[in-house]
């Protein structure tokens, strides 16, 4: 009886997924991975089986797209349908999440929605890390296969937008290597990184992260075309332009992703997407087989009192991956965070006799304290390349364990990408604004799309779930659950500002001195605009 029911369930699932695959083939978009610039389709898949590929409404009674039972392997048809669908449509432009789930799962609405967002995060992760060539599926990729987000057609590094002189740029401008790296730079394969403080120091300058080989972890930020276009349109790449009178009235409000009209497959757009990554410098060939890797030319900080920079070549392994995605229904953005599985132990795992990327098993009295910042000075010394000056190695432990639900989902998706290095990555969680009415609220004043209500009080973040979320490589020193002190994506980024100046007094106050217009220099949850250059201070 039980096995019959199971057979029926898996058969139905296979039939549905084959149907999805068939319809996708019929529409015939199979040639190349859509870049974010030209994405004509949106990935409409979600955690509950949809009624049909063009209608994200789930089938009732609800059935899960992925069977999370740990004892059953992922159905080959399910794997094919998910990976082929991602190949053909790319990222979800907007989340499709409900508070519903199959009967008998005994989950709360919050847990059902969290599962939906985590499923969305895995689709996004696979879509962004699939091979950039558009022909190879992620499970066939090699460690150093260039990913979609590493292709300059799809994403641009922050410092290629915030140019040294505050100059405008075009999306198609070729990547310029830092001058000292020009003779080593191979544009087709190399990542060019210019070291600034944010490249090695954690948020709020809380300190660098040093791996067990004594190398600095490195950080980088990238944006998609819609972010770039908005920044260019309002000249936000330039500090003096941010401070202009014209921009004093601007409420920074980045584009929001939107699915196609209900019942249609074409249309929709991804909206603003920001990626933040963390890298580990790889010294050995053995290490290079475990990570997604990239060859990088790195322009070092100059020696004190000098302007001369050195260039070093390194192979970098991906250890952390954040995605911020603004959507029409989550105007506070959706916050996705992935890590390499070998980064750090959870507190329950510190007794395991093994080494991690940022933790070494230790059971002596002389064990270094965990989650401590290195001794100063923190700046990398040019003469040491990117080795930390001294014996210090970070000893990092994850403060907030992954939920059992997230672990189950990770196992299933890791199975789907098995055979590639991507099986070595795990989702930590997805933070999302849980108060729906608040999250989609538009400003009462007329304004251009998405016309986000940026003045919501008392909670502009619309009740983030989970309340806290930290990546052990990107928010290493602010893990925990202390309100406003521990890492919460939204609570922190909600305080991001620009260099915008207040409008002239005549525009701010009426004749009686009462305020008539509000001044905003908040930057819609991104700190990127702080990196604008130009003017007297570079």
């Amino acid at each position: 009886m039980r096995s019959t029911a199971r057979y029926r369930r898996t058969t139905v699932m296979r039939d549905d997924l084959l149907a999805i695959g068939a319809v996708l083939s019929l529409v015939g978009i199979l040639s190349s991975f859509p870049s974010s610039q030209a994405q004509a389709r949106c990935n409409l898949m979600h955690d509950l089986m949809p009624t049909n590929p063009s209608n994200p409404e789930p089938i009732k009674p609800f059935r899960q797209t992925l069977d999370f039972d740990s004892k059953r392997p992922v159905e080959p048809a399910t794997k094919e349908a998910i990976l082929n669908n991602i190949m053909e449509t790319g990222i979800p432009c907007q989340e499709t999440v409900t508070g519903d789930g199959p009967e008998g799962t005994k989950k709360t609405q919050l847990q059902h929605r969290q599962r939906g967002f985590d499923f969305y995060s895995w689709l996004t992760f696979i879509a962004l890390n699939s091979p950039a060539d558009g022909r190879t599926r992620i499970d066939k990729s090699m460690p150093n296969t260039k990913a979609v987000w590493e292709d300059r057609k799809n994403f641009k590094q922050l410092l290629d937008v915030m140019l040294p002189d505050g100059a405008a740029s075009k999306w198609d401008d070729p990547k310029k290597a830092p001058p000292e790296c020009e003779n080593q730079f191979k544009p087709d394969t190399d990542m060019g990184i210019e070291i600034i403080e944010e490249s090695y120091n954690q948020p709020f300058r809380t300190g660098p992260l040093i791996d067990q080989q004594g190398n600095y972890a490195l950080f980088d930020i990238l944006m998609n075309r819609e972010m770039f276009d908005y920044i260019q349109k309002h000249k936000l790449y330039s500090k003096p332009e941010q401070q202009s009178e014209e921009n004093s009235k601007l409420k920074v409000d980045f584009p929001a992703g939107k699915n196609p009209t209900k019942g249609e497959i074409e249309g929709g757009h991804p909206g603003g997407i920001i990626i933040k990554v963390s890298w580990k410098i790889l010294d050995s060939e053995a290490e290079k087989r475990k990570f997604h890797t990239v060859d990088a030319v790195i322009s070092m900080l100059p020696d004190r009192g000098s302007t001369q920079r050195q260039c070093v070549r390194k192979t970098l392994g991906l250890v952390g991956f954040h995605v911020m995605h603004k959507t029409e229904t989550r105007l506070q953005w959706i916050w996705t965070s992935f890590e390499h599985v070998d980064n750090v132990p959870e507190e329950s795992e510190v007794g395991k006799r093994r080494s991690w990327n940022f933790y070494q098993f230790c059971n002596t009295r002389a064990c270094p304290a965990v989650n401590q910042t290195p001794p100063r000075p923190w700046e990398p010394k040019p003469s040491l390349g990117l080795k930390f000056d001294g014996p210090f190695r970070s000893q990092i432990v994850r403060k907030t364990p992954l939920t059992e639900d997230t672990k189950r989902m990770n196992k299933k998706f890791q199975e789907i990408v098995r055979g590639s290095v991507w099986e070595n990555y795990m989702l930590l969680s997805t933070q999302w604004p849980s108060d729906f009415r608040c999250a989609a609220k538009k400003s009462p004043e007329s304004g251009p799309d998405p016309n986000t209500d940026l003045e919501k009080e008392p909670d502009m973040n619309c009740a983030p779930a989970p309340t806290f979320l930290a990546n052990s490589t990107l928010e290493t020193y602010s893990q925990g659950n202390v309100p406003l002190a521990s890492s919460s994506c939204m609570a922190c980024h909600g305080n991001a500002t620009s260099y915008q100046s207040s409008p002239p007094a005549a525009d701010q106050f009426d004749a009686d001195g009462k305020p008539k217009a509000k001044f905003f220099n908040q930057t819609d949850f991104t700190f990127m605009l702080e990196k604008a250059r130009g003017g007297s201070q570079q």
Partner: protein
Amino acid sequence: MKLPAVSPDAGSSPARRLPQLQRRSADSPASAQTGNDMVAFVQLSAALTGIADVKLATGNFNATPANSDPVDIRRQYFDWVNRRRPAVFRRLLQIAGDAQKLPEAGRAQAIIDRVQAAPDAKYLARSIVLMWYLGAWYDPGDLQKAAELPNHPSPAFKVISSKAYSQAWALRVAQAHPMGFSEMQFGYWARPPSERPVFIGN
């Protein structure tokens, strides 16, 4: 009497579930696992504090079943009171449940009147009001002594948790935020706050 456990998400809306609240013996403990009890607690709290239920329990409390609230302070408060005064707490929940049969316009006042008329319940109700407003626990016995005995010292209190402190309503009613904890937009201090109904929903 052991009550049957009901999923906190049972039913589809608080308004539909409340009339089904069963009468129980006075010494039956309430259960946060029982969706009806939690709904009654939020409705009781809304009537006593004057703050809208959707504000006390964020996450679409009215539009969807409970437990879509990641902060879930109501659950901590529910458990806190239930551990200390289970029988009287049960009576308060019953008052809130019974009031749902009344027209909505006079429902909150009816709850207040009935609580005031129950001498043992009204001091626990005061403790609940203080808990929501200050994130702190004042024992109802101490509140009663402070009210009835001349020259009785101010009652002692205990801050329930860091979460309770950050979710306390006293400063939000004043269109501000608890010290050291703000979820308002950067730069909010430079302009007048939103109107009070935006903060408390009423």
